[in-house]
């Protein structure tokens, strides 16, 4: 299942105006920075485009895909070229910032954008499920994050208390 075919569809959607600026987050983005593990979904974060008025809705996006034969769903994800793609709104200021500061990369020749590792770490902390905590721990253990930049993100998004709780629980002093 070649991910570049999926990414190309996303870029075509952006060119057609049904998908706004977007970036990859979630596990696939994390696995570009840390040891990869199994994943089923491709999480695409985007601001919905307004449709026929001022309401923000994902409807044109799904209609566009349906018209091109992408009509299969798995839970809340739509199957695009073999990948279950979840279109996720920018529900928090942290996600909005993550999209603005996402980095441009090429995946097998297809240009795309991914969240920075420091934003992925902060999003993991904010989301707070056990698998997010495990991922954050992995980022820290691999030691390649810019901890100063991470600290600034935590401060901006009022995550210092959550970070201190995480440290007390998972990073006991040596």
């Amino acid at each position: 299942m070649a991910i570049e075919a999926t990414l190309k569809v996303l870029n075509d959607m952006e060119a057609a105006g049904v998908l706004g600026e977007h970036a990859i987050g979630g596990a696939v983005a994390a696995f570009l920075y840390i040891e990869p593990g199994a994943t089923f979904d491709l999480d695409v974060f985007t601001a919905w485009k307004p449709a026929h008025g001022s309401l923000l809705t994902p409807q044109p996006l799904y209609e566009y895909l349906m018209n091109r034969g992408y009509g299969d769903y798995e839970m809340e994800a739509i199957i695009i070229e073999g990948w279950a793609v979840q279109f996720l709104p920018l529900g928090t200021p942290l996600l909005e910032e993550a999209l603005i500061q996402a980095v441009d990369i090429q995946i097998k020749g297809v240009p795309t954008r991914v969240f920075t590792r420091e934003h992925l770490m902060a999003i993991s902390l904010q989301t707070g499920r056990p698998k997010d905590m495990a991922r954050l721990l992995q980022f820290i253990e691999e030691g390649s994050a810019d901890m100063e930049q991470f600290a600034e993100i935590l401060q901006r998004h009022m995550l210092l208390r959550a970070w201190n709780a995480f440290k007390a629980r998972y990073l006991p002093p040596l």
Partner: protein
Amino acid sequence: MKAHRLEEMFAAKQARRKRLANLSIGRKVDLIEQLHQLGRTMIGARESLPKPAGRRESH
């Protein structure tokens, strides 16, 4: 298990993580695709497992 054996295992795990984390994006994407395929295969296999029997009523 002896402490030095645990330390060896931890060091090997860290080395593997570092090696994987330092792969090129292209190689990582290959790996992600393989793991994605593996995950889907395992889900298919899981669905073919016999369903757990219902809990017996206690009287």
